[in-house]
C-alpha cells in the first residue's frame, strides 16, 4: 500500500511544477560553494595513499621504517592498522579489504599503505620510501576469461552459489541468478523467426568531475569529525565506524557539496584511511584522490558479455526471450548482474522469458553503482535484438515495440505484475514526435530503444522548523546532487501554502538528524520529498492546534488551507484566517517552537520507463560517429522542478552517448589500466553533441502523494541500445560491442565488405 493512501491529488499545484532558481545557485556560480577538497582545518596534514602497481600479487612484507624516519611524516597506516571488526559480515569485510589490501593486492591501484605528512611533497617522498615485497601472481581482467576453468582464481573462498550441485573447487564465479517464467523452449518452438546474438560491453566510469575528497579529524578520546563529498554521509559514518571499531555516535560526518556521483560515491574508499591516519597522528588529515586514482581505485561499473535469443511469430509477437548475462564487478562479489537479468526484458509482455546472470570477479577495482546499475548493458543487448527482429518481420521498430510492450497487468520478466506504468505512453508519444518524421541525411541512421528501472525508497528522516517570522528551515539528510534542495523547498512550500523562497533547505550533518539512506536509486525527490510533505503536514497540524488555542476553540475545528489556519466550518466560530507567520509569531506563548518531523522507510517508489530516439552519422572513411539528433521521452510521475527533470534526462542520455561511443577501461596484458585520465578515457565534450530534446510524461505514481517517480537513473538505460541501433542503421552492419569507437566500426565495415566481396 502506498504510504499516503488518499487518492491522487487531482488539484492544480501552486508551486510544484514551476521552475524557480535553486537555493544553492549563487554559491555555485560565484565559486563559494564548498566541495570535498575545499575544506581546511588548523594543523591539517596531507594524506597520500600508496597503491599496488600489480594486478594480482601476494603482499609478503611492508616495510615503513624508512618512511617513518622522514622529517614531516606524522603517521603511516597499513593493513596492520585495520584489524577485522566485521564480525562475519562478508560485504563489510570486502569493503575493509578494498580500502586497504590484506594478504593480496587484487588489482592495480589497490591501496597498500597511506601516509600523513606536513605537506604534499613530504607525503609523496614518504610513499617512495615504503618498501613492499610483492609476489606477483597471474591475473585476469576479462569476464569470459575469468570464467574459464583454468583462470587464475582471486579468492579461494568462492564456491559458486545458485548452481546444483554446489562446486567444491573455488572459481571466480560468485553466484548464478535466474529469473523468468513460462517455458522458453516451447516458446521458441512456436517462433517463426529467432535471432540469437552475443554482445560485449566494456567497463565505464561514472566520471564525476570531483575526485573523492575528505577531511578527517579524530582525537585521542575517539571522537571524530569527517567532512566528505559523498552521496550518503550516514552510510559513510556507519561504515567507517564499523570498520574502525568506533562508536557511531562519536563520529560526526558532514556532507560537503558533491561534484557528481552517479552511484560512484555510494560507498567508502579513502574515508576510513583518512580517519585512521588522523587517529594515529592526532591531527586533521585531508585526503584527495588524483584523477588517476579515481580511475584505478574507485568503483567503475561492470564489463559484460551477454547472449540474447528472442523468437517471434511472422506477425510480430514475441513467443520467447532468453538471455545469459556475465558481469565482472572487479575483485569482489557484487556485480549488478542480478539487476541486469531482472531488467533485461522488463519492457515486454512475455509469456516465456528467462534471464540467467553470473556474478564474476576479476583483477579490477571493486565496482560501485552507476546509474541504474546493471540495466544499460542488458538493454543494449536486448534492444539490439528487438530492432533486428522488427526489421526481419517487416515492422517499424516502434510498432514492434508497441505490439509487445508491457502494460498494466503484464507479468513482468522479473516476476511481479505491473500496476499503472508509463511505457506505452512514451512509445506512443515517440511515434508522434517530429523527430520520427524528420528526414535523414547521407550516412545517417535512426535508432530507438526503451529502458526500464526499478527505483526505490529507503530510510529517510526530515525535520522542518517554523521560524518566528513565518519562514521555514528544512533539514534533510540526503546529499543534494542535482538540485534536490530546490525540489524539497517546492514541496514544503506547496504543502504549507507559503512562497517557495520562504523555505530554506539544508543537508544536515549526521549528528543533527536521524539516519538517511544514501542519495541513490532515484530516491530523493520521491522519498525525501514524501518525508518533507509529511513533515509539513505534521507542522500544519501543530499550527492548527496553536490557532485553536489562540481562538479558544477545539483543535479539530481548525483546518490548514492556502497557507492559513481557518475555522473548519461555520460552527467553529467566525475568526479571520491566521497566516503561518501570525501563528508562528505567537509560538512562544502557545507552547514553544513549532516543528514538523517525519521518519520512515519509504517504499512504493514505482518503476519507470523511457523511450529514446537517436540519429547518428557514421563516417565510412574514419569510423567516427556523430550524434545528430537525440530525443528522450520519460515518465516522471510528476515533475516537481521540470528543469532539473529535463537535466536528469539530458545528463543520463549524454553519459549513455559516452558509454556507447567512446568510454572504456582499456587493460594491457600486464593487467594495468592504460587510460586512467580524461585525455584517453574520453567522456563527451560540448562540441561532440547536439541539443538533447526532452519530453516529460506524467503518469502519477500511486505510491507518492504528488505522484512523483524517481527520474535519475532510467535515462541512462536506453541510450546504449538506441545509439547502437542508429549506428548499425547508418553503417549498414550490426554493431555488437561497446564502445562503438572508430576502430571497432571500421573493423565491422571491413568485415562486412569482405563478406560482400566473397559473396560476389
Amino acid at each position, binding site marked *: 500500500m502506498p504510504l499516503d493512501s488518499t487518492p491522487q491529488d487531482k488539484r492544480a499545484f501552486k508551486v510544484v511544477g514551476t521552475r524557480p532558481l535553486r537555493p544553492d545557485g549563487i554559491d555555485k556560480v560565484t565559486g563559494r560553494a564548498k566541495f570535498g577538497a575545499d575544506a581546511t582545518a588548523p594543523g591539517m596534514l596531507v594524506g597520500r595513499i600508496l597503491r599496488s602497481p600489480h594486478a594480482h600479487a601476494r603482499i609478503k612484507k611492508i616495510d615503513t621504517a624508512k618512511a617513518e624516519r622522514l622529517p614531516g611524516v606524522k603517521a603511516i597506516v597499513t593493513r596492520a592498522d585495520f584489524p577485522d571488526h566485521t564480525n562475519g559480515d562478508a560485504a563489510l569485510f570486502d569493503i575493509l579489504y578494498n580500502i586497504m589490501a590484506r594478504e593480496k593486492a587484487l588489482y592495480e591501484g589497490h591501496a597498500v599503505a597511506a601516509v600523513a605528512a606536513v605537506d604534499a611533497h613530504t607525503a609523496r617522498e614518504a610513499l617512495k620510501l615504503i618498501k613492499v615485497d610483492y609476489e606477483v601472481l597471474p591475473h585476469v581482467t576479462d569476464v569470459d576469461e575469468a570464467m574459464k576453468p583454468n583462470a587464475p582464481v582471486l579468492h579461494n573462498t568462492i564456491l559458486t552459489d545458485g548452481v546444483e550441485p554446489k562446486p567444491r573447487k573455488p572459481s571466480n564465479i560468485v553466484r548464478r541468478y535466474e*529469473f523468468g517464467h513460462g517455458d522458453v523452449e516451447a516458446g521458441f518452438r512456436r517462433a517463426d523467426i529467432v535471432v540469437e546474438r552475443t554482445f560485449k560491453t566494456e567497463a565505464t566510469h561514472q566520471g564525476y568531475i570531483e575526485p573523492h575528497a575528505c577531511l578527517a579529524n579524530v582525537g585521542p578520546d575517539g571522537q571524530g569529525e569527517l567532512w566528505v563529498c559523498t552521496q550518503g554521509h550516514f552510510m559513510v559514518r556507519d561504515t567507517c565506524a564499523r570498520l574502525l571499531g568506533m562508536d557511531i555516535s562519536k563520529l560526526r560526518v558532514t556532507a560537503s557539496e558533491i561534484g557528481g556521483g552517479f552511484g560512484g560515491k*555510494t560507498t567508502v574508499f579513502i574515508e576510513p584511511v583518512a580517519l585512521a591516519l588522523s587517529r594515529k597522528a592526532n591531527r586533521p588529515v585531508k585526503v584527495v584522490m588524483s584523477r588517476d586514482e579515481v580511475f584505478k581505485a574507485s568503483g567503475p561499473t561492470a564489463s559484460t558479455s551477454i547472449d540474447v535469443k528472442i523468437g517471434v511469430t511472422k506477425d510480430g509477437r514475441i513467443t520467447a526471450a532468453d538471455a545469459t548475462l556475465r558481469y565482472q564487478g572487479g575483485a569482489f562479489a557484487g556485480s549488478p548482474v542480478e539487476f541486469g537479468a531482472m531488467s533485461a526484458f522488463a519492457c515486454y509482455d512475455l509469456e516465456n522469458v528467462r534471464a540467467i546472470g553470473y556474478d564474476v570477479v576479476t583483477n579490477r577495482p571493486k565496482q560501485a553503482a552507476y546509474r541504474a546499475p546493471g540495466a544499460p548493458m542488458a538493454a543494449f543487448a536486448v534492444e539490439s535484438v528487438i530492432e533486428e527482429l522488427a526489421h526481419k518481420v517487416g515492422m517499424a521498430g516502434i510498432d514492434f515495440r508497441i505490439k509487445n510492450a508491457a502494460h498494466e497487468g503484464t507479468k513482468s520478466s522479473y516476476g*511481479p505484475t505491473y500496476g499503472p506504468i508509463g511505457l506505452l505512453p512514451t512509445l506512443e508519444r515517440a511515434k508522434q514526435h517530429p523527430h520520427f518524421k524528420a528526414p535523414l541525411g547521407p550516412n545517417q541512421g535512426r535508432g530507438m530503444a526503451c529502458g526500464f528501472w*526499478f527505483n*526505490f525508497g529507503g530510510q529517510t528522516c526530515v525535520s522542518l522548523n517554523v521560524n518566528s517570522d513565518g519562514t521555514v528551515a528544512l533539514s534533510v539528510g540526503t546529499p543534494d546532487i542535482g538540485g534536490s534542495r530546490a525540489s524539497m523547498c517546492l514541496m514544503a512550500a506547496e504543502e504549507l501554502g507559503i512562497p517557495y523562497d520562504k523555505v530554506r533547505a539544508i543537508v544536515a550533518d549526521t549528528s543533527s538528524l536521524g539516519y538517511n539512506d544514501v542519495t541513490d536509486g532515484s530516491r530523493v525527490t520521491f522519498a525525501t520529498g514524501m518525508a518533507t510533505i509529511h513533515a509539513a503536514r505534521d507542522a500544519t497540524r501543530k499550527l492548527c492546534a496553536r490557532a485553536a488555542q489562540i481562538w479558544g476553540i477545539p483543535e479539530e475545528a481548525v483546518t490548514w488551507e492556502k497557507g492559513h489556519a481557518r475555522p473548519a466550518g461555520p460552527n467553529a466560530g467566525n475568526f479571520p484566517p491566521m497566516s503561518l507567520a501570525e501563528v508562528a509569531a505567537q509560538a512562544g506563548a502557545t507552547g514553544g517552537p513549532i516543528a514538523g518531523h517525519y521518519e520512515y522507510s519509504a517504499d512504493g517508489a514505482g518503476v519507470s520507463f523511457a523511450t529514446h530516439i537517436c540519429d547518428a552519422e557514421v563516417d565510412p572513411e574514419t569510423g567516427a560517429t556523430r550524434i545528430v539528433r537525440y530525443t528522450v521521452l520519460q515518465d516522471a510521475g510528476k515533475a516537481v522542478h521540470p528543469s532539473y527533470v529535463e537535466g536528469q534526462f539530458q545528463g543520463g542520455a549524454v553519459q549513455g552517448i559516452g558509454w556507447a561511443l567512446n568510454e572504456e577501461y582499456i587493460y594491457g596484458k600486464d593487467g594495468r589500466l592504460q587510460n586512467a585520465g580524461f585525455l584517453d578515457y574520453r567522456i563527451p565534450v560540448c562540441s561532440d553533441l547536439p541539443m538533447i530534446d526532452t519530453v516529460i510524461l506524467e503518469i502519477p505514481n500511486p*505510491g507518492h502523494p504528488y505522484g512523483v517517480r524517481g527520474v535519475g537513473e532510467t535515462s541512462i538505460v536506453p541510450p546504449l541500445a538506441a545509439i547502437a541501433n542508429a549506428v548499425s542503421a547508418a553503417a549498414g552492419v550490426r554493431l555488437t560491442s561497446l564502445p562503438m569507437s572508430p576502430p571497432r566500426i571500421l573493423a565491422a565495415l571491413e568485415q562486412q565488405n569482405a563478406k560482400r566481396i566473397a559473396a560476389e
Partner: protein
Amino acid sequence: MVKVVVWGSLKPHTGGKAELEIEATNVRELLNRLGDAYPGLKPQLARGVSVAIDGVIFRDGWHEPLRKESEVFLLPRMVGG
C-alpha cells in the same frame, strides 16, 4: 497461507520449487518462516532481499501486510546509483 515465488537460482535451496506456501500475515513473518522452512535460503535472506507485493516492491517494511490472495515475489535487495 501466502504463496511466495522465489527466483530461479534459489530453487536448489527450496527442494526445486519456485512457488512456496508460507503461513504469514506480514513481510517479517514471511521472511522468518521462509528461513525456518528452507535454511538454505538464510544466507540470501541475510544478504538482503526485497519483497514485491501486488506489483509494489518493498525493500524494507516488515509490517507490510500480506493477504491470502496477494501476489508475492522474493527479489534481490534493490540497489541504485
